[in-house]
């Protein structure tokens, strides 16, 4: 897939699973996972197409549902309010030139980080690996940024739920499988995996963990920093 001429990011080759895209479209996916999905969608025309299809299911259900009459006067109250409501113009975004590991972060990540990225609160969780938490959602799932130096073993064992990783810059291998910017890896507690960052530079990724954390392994060390065991 890498033959087109765009500069930085090829079409990702590891995508978000269909059930998660559907939950995102239905509005039922947790906040932490939604951040990873929205970030992948910034990079991935294929998955945007799938989300559009899932949203079209919502549109079809909306068209097909038996209408529920509005309360008396509801329509005219809304019509009366139109006068004072001008069209919204798209707000132009201020250009952000701040980078982490040489990368300007996509909006869905940027929106949950402080204005000034130099104030980010990184913690060293392992030699060569630091982490900063962006958000813990209502279900206890956490999402944050992980910055690992070249040749670091970013094994993340010992938690009961799902783990979702998306590369933002650099890359890693899990066995023979390569993960490049935009690629997503989803594993559960039963998956044995040995991710290792590539030897040609640092790897920045977005990482989401759900479920309870077993106090062994890297991810446990990441989260022990925030959660007293």
């Amino acid at each position: 897939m890498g033959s087109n001429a765009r500069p930085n990011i090829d079409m990702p080759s590891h995508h978000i699973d269909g059930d998660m895209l559907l939950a995102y479209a239905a509005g039922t996916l947790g906040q932490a996972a939604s951040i990873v999905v929205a970030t992948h969608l910034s990079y991935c025309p294929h998955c945007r197409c799938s989300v559009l299809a899932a949203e079209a299911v919502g549109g079809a259900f909306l068209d097909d549902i038996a209408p529920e009459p509005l309360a008396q006067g509801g329509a005219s109250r809304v019509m009366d309010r139109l006068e004072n409501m001008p069209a919204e113009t798209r707000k132009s975004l201020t250009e952000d030139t701040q980078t982490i590991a040489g990368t300007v972060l996509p909006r869905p990540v940027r929106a949950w980080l402080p204005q000034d990225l130099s104030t980010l609160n990184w913690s060293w969780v392992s030699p060569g690996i630091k982490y900063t938490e962006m958000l813990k959602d209502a279900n206890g799932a956490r999402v944050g940024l992980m910055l690992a130096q070249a040749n670091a073993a970013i094994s993340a064992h010992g938690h009961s739920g799902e783990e979702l990783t998306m590369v933002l810059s650099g890359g890693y291998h899990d066995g023979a499988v390569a993960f490049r910017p935009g690629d997503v890896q989803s594993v559960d507690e039963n998956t044995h995996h040995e991710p290792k960052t590539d030897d040609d530079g640092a790897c920045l990724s977005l990482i989401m963990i759900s479920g309870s954390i077993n106090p062994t392994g890297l991810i446990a060390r990441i989260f022990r920093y925030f959660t007293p065991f």
Partner: protein
Amino acid sequence: MSPEVGSPASPLGEMSALLVTLAATRDKQIFAQLFAYYAPRVKAYLMRQGTDSATAEELAQEAMLIVWRRADSFDPEKASAATWIYTVVRNLRIDALRKLRRPEFDLDDPAFVPDLPQRPDDALQCDQTEKRVREALKQLPEEQAVVVKLSFFEDKPHGEIAEQLSLPLGTVKSRLRLAMRRLQPLLGE
């Protein structure tokens, strides 16, 4: 069902055309037609998801006011009016009821990777989405259709839907993945 779904005479095409006209003219009579069709459906949809009648009414009015203000950002190439209004309602519900900001990608994001015009097959798949999705939705095997419907109407995570159906979560997920493959087959899969 009706083979003319998606043709200009059906609500799918008719309502989308109205919404495009609204963006261009800001004509209140056009808005009134969209309101008459969608506001009661939005209210019904929210009630189906468990919102009480008074809140559903309020959110339906609020959603239609967003339609009035943001009609300009409706892109008929990407979605039908029904789908676009569905997304307005979904986001409003998340904002209002859960007090959360929904993570969304942004077309103006400098890091955004646009659709690839040099791959015409992709573009074709996206253009055809609405009509094809509605056809594919009707053809889904019953066990897939059930979990898709619950995903949209129950406002619950898939884990709770699995409990409700007394199915393992893995089964619910795999049915949804199969359904998504029928609704939007990806190239190269």
